[in-house]
């Protein structure tokens, strides 16, 4: 195989940057913008990008070579906003000419491998946010404690299941089923001393489609009709699978215990 020519390397770099951004939860228009800027910096005749939430297509054209296209399929999206920010900064520096192409490539690689918070920290904070959310929705100290425990387990469960590359909605369904079951168990133990509503809402909050929803709106404003609709659908599907999970567990609990 002959070595990659200059424009092919550039294209690879730009698509890699875009792919990493898209995977980490950036908006579509930001990904398109970044790829276009990175490639326009080397003055190709035309640069066209087409990005959807699950894939990237880029074509560059110039007189010195024939057309060149790259397609990247994007799977396993996670939310890593630190990467979005760092790549944004990287592309800005590169376009302004502050760093060379080699520096930019090595920086992109280090961004990809960059470690942020350990899974233990993330897990602990999921628990803490669940607990404080239950307080926000008028919970008492018992609710606080129960939400913390459920949140810890749900956080680790979610992380564990996501590694198995099952589709997102099903993972959320299982998690919310677990929330429902544990709330019912807690209710059998504690009765009316706990507030079921605040616990369920507190525990569901980390799973709610906040990112998908915000990105849907931001994409729709950026005139990205396709991505706006698909992200909005994603948000709706997440909400429905959460409601279904908790609903099934609660109705089962009602059927056994007759608490209503």
């Amino acid at each position: 195989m002959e070595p990659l020519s200059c424009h092919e390397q550039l294209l690879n770099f730009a698509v890699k940057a875009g792919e990493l951004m898209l995977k980490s939860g950036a908006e579509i228009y930001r990904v398109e913008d970044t790829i276009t800027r990175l490639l326009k910096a080397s003055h190709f005749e035309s640069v066209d990008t087409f990005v959807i939430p699950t894939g990237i297509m880029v074509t560059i054209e110039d007189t010195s070579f024939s057309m060149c296209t790259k397609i990247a399929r994007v799977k396993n999206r996670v939310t890593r906003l630190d990467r979005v920010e760092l790549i944004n900064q990287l592309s800005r520096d590169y376009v302004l000419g502050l760093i060379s192409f080699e520096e930019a490539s090595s920086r992109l690689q280090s961004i990809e491998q960059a470690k942020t918070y350990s899974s233990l920290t993330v897990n602990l904070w999921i628990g803490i946010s669940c607990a404080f959310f239950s307080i926000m929705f008028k919970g008492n100290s018992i609710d606080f404690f129960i939400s913390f425990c459920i949140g810890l387990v749900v956080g680790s469960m979610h992380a564990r299941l996501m590694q198995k590359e099952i589709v997102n909605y099903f993972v959320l369904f299982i998690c919310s089923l677990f929330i429902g079951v544990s709330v019912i168990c807690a209710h059998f133990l504690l009765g009316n001393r706990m507030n079921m509503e605040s616990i369920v809402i507190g525990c569901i909050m980390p799973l709610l489609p906040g990112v998908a929803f915000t990105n849907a709106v931001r994409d729709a404003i950026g005139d990205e009709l396709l991505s706006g609709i698909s992200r909005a659908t994603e948000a709706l599907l997440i909400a429905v699978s959460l409601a279904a999970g908790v609903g099934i567990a609660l109705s089962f609990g009602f059927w056994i215990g007759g608490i209503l």
Partner: protein
Amino acid sequence: MINHFILSLISAFISTIGFSIVFHIQKKHLLICGIVGAAGWAVYLIGEEVHLSPVISTFLASLLVTQISYFLARTRKTPVTVFLIAGIIPLVPGLGLYRTMYSLLTSDYSKAIEYAILTFELAGVIAGAIVIISLLPLIWRPKKSR
């Protein structure tokens, strides 16, 4: 009452920080994200206190959150999503979703539809606030010279 208000604000602050960590936002932004979340929640609570409907309180709160996020994004040279996602999280209508589901379980269908509509209204109002704040400045933008 004032006790509950302060407790609720502190909870919003801490849980927004928790979320920012879950979304892997960089350490230097964490405190600010927490403040944005708490500010939005404060507006919501005050709205509730003066008997505004939840829809209007959420609208005002998301207007504030979006405006702060845009301001911070410009001054700190950060993508606006970093602050926006963190700040919007406490306002996401989890309560409406839960109550819709609960009313469906108890076969109280008129209540279920009421809460379902409320949930959609809240979501729509948050979207509307983001759109307004993002696009309004563009009206006064100088025309692009081609």
